């Protein structure tokens, strides 16, 4: 008997701070819009207490041997669980930071570290067990898979998540290496066949699904939609244009922004630090635990002030850790002025279009903590994105009429991420954009309404699973970057001077899923018995390079970014005798959305995939 096909299209949002899973029953033969269910995820919320929550905090806590009573960490599907994922990991981990794994996703796309080696919790003492960023991500996915199997799979292998159409959302700014590692994490979690989708696209899919046929009233041909996605830990921008082809509407993803480690958590932390300083000025010293609860209290106070515009301030009471509550409680308040100054002006200032983010251009290779954004101003990052893409698009996309404009003019904005529940922040972004547009005589943008900010990515990803089966409108776009391998230019050797590197384009911008490109023959060879390494570069702005084109001085350019190298070691069993096997390169974008580089033996049958070496060259 043939194995039954999938019953559900499942979308997973594997976020930096929260994860969620949504599903769409294929048998219903129609999308459910805003009614599409989100899976309640059982997770430990206290020691010995398991509860359902719609969001799974992306935190992993690695307890010591005798830290908790026996069986108190049991999960419905694992009586002997020895690890904590989710709510309890986050709340208890605040008191034991050396055993808490957080922001695994940001580490997963950090090229400066070996992402397959156990290095988290970062700076944990030596006796604490550690896991790799890849492992941590795999555990969150495994937890979601177990929850799904228990709720909907009824314990039958044929109904398990692994058998469903699973779409996993990743930041649009993830490069080929981070995407590859995400797929590897899914594999480790027992999900060998997931498909990747960019998060801002997922947000737009969720909006399309919720709007139903009504979306045609809100978008029209010629629109350029800017998706502004500020999550818990990262900010992500995408431009999607609305075109017409053969009388049908078509959506095309034009460009994506760079990876910016800046999100809602930074904002709450900024408020907490400001209030902490205020308390210190009054002579009250806060310990690390109190700072943590202050951060939480600030989030609550922030939401209160943003949702009731008439309140001038929100009171904050911080309990001491000891049992003396009345004597030990520290009292303060968050004033509206402070909120406006710190959040609205600090993270969303009214900046000019020409004001670019301040960068202490990090040295990449030597830096070892997470490369947080140096400039907290989301609006300046946005200006940089729109102006850089205008230059890149001007020569290529005539239909956009970008020529002569200082930045890409969006006509509509879709917000995503819990940060934008605050009306004043959405209004500020729109205001700043409209200021820029007015300066070039363009009409103001409009906001795409009805966006759901917290669960849109999971919902939209599930809906994409449905769209992939030939329903509804699909966003086209292909790869968001062009990819290159480094070729050392022939030059006389000078001691101490690195020979200049030229970048050979192997995959052009916008390569679609399921296509491949042969690189014109070069003199590449794999050496039998030792690893051959290719330096690997990407660009999010070089849209016109074709396969086989060369870019000079690859290491010195602003529009090329070096990624972790690609490697392949041939064993003598794999290749015919002879020390050097001459090869041609071929790039392919797989159906699931990952980039694969292969070596094809010249005049032979050998075919080898180049593997990602996740560690940057020192």
């Amino acid at each position, binding site marked *: 008997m043939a194995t039954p096909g999938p019953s559900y299209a499942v979308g997973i949002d594997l976020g930096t701070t929260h994860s969620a899973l949504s599903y769409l029953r294929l048998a219903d033969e129609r999308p459910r819009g805003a009614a599409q269910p989100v899976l309640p995820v059982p997770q430990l*919320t*206290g*020691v*010995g*207490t*398991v*509860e359902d929550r719609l969001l799974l905090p992306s935190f992993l806590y690695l307890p010591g041997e005798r830290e908790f*009573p*026996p*069986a*108190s960490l*049991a999960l419905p599907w694992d009586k002997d669980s020895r690890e904590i994922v989710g709510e309890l990991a986050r709340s208890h981990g605040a*008191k034991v930071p050396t055993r808490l794994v957080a922001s695994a996703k940001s580490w997963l796309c950090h090229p400066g570290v070996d992402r397959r080696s156990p290095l988290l919790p970062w700076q944990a003492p030596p006796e604490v067990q550690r896991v790799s960023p890849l492992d941590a991500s795999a555990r969150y996915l495994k937890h979601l898979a177990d929850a799904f199997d228990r709720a909907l799979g009824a314990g039958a292998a044929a109904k398990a998540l692994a058998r469903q159409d699973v779409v996993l959302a990743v930041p649009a700014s993830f490069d080929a290496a981070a995407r590859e590692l995400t797929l590897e994490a899914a594999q480790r979690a027992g999900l060998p066949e997931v498909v990747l989708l960019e998060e801002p696209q997922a947000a737009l899919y969720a909006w399309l699904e919720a709007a139903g046929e009504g979306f045609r009233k809100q978008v029209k041909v010629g629109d350029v939609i800017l998706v502004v996605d500020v999550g818990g830990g990262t900010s992500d921008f995408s431009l999607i244009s609305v075109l017409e082809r053969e009388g049908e509407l078509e959506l095309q993803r034009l460009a994506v922004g760079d990876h910016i480690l800046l999100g809602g958590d930074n904002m709450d932390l900024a408020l907490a630090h400001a209030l902490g300083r205020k308390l210190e000025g009054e002579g009250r010293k806060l310990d690390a635990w109190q700072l943590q609860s202050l951060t939480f209290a600030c989030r*609550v106070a922030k939401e209160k002030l943003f949702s009731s515009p008439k309140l001038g301030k929100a*009171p904050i*009471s*911080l*309990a001491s*850790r000891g*049992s*003396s*509550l*009345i*004597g030990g*409680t*520290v*009292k303060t308040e968050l004033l509206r002025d402070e909120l406006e100054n710190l959040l609205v002006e600090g993270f969303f200032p009214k900046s000019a279009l020409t004001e670019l983010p301040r960068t202490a251009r990090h040295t990449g290779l030597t830096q070892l903590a997470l490369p947080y954004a140096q400039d907290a101003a989301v609006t300046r990052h946005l200006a940089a994105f729109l102006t850089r893409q205008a230059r890149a698009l001007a020569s290529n996309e005539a239909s956009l009429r970008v020529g002569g404009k200082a930045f890409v003019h969006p006509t509509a904005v879709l917000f995503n991420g819990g940060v934008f529940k605050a009306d004043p922040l959405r209004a500020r972004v729109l205001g700043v954009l409209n200021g820029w547009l007015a300066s070039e005589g363009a009409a103001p943008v409009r906001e795409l309404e009805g966006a759901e900010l917290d669960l849109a990515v999971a919902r939209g990803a599930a809906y994409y699973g449905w769209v992939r089966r030939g329903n509804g409108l699909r966003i086209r776009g292909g790869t968001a970057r062009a990819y290159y391998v480094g070729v050392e230019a022939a030059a006389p050797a000078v001691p101490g001077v690195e020979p200049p590197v030229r970048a050979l384009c192997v995959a052009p911008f916008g390569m679609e899923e399921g296509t491949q490109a042969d690189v014109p023959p070069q003199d590449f060879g794999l050496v039998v018995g030792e690893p051959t390494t290719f330096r690997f570069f990407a660009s999010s702005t070089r849209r016109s390079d074709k396969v086989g084109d060369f870019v000079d001085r690859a290491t010195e350019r602003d529009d090329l970014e070096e990624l972790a190298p690609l490697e392949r070691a041939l064993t003598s069993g794999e290749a015919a005798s002879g020390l050097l096997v001459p090869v041609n390169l071929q790039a392919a974008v797989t159906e699931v959305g990952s980039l694969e580089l292969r070596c094809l033996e010249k005049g032979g049958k050998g075919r080898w995939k180049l593997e990602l070496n996740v560690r940057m060259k020192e």
Partner: protein
Amino acid sequence: MTPEPIPFFARLWLAFACFFRMLFDPALAGRVQPVLAAGAPAAPVPKAPAAPAIEPPERSHASGLFVLSMLQREGRLLDFLQEDITSHPDEAVGAAARVVHEGCRRVVHDYLSIEPVVGDAEGASITVPADFDARRIRLTGNVAGQPPFHGSVKHHGWVTKSVRLPPVPVSGDPLVLAPAEVELT
């Protein structure tokens, strides 16, 4: 026939009510005392084939203790109740009350749906129908004659619409309401 077991929150309420009535109603206290002394009321007890195992009180009240531990974890309720508040100024008590209020309120809102028994505003006139439920409405003042009664709402009451409390952890000791925290350096 043994009476149906009374749910926890009803017992909690009953316990409060009993406390005050025993304190202020000597006649009632006099009637209750023999009942307490004799244990169960003198209802005809059917001969059970085997005596059911008697649960220790911390087991039969485990759910109540668990709710208390949640109110402590989220809202520091026990810390607040165990502390002597007479020596502290109102300002400090107020600041602590915010912590208790915010956390306990979260527990109540997350795990229970609570709403007024009667929808009418306090002070409004209402009619109590003939078939009213004496468990939901308590008559006070000039209680005489036959229903329907006419009166004004003094307190709209509270009733739980749904209970979403998690099960009591089987691995824990119900007597421990909050573990001690020892920070290692």
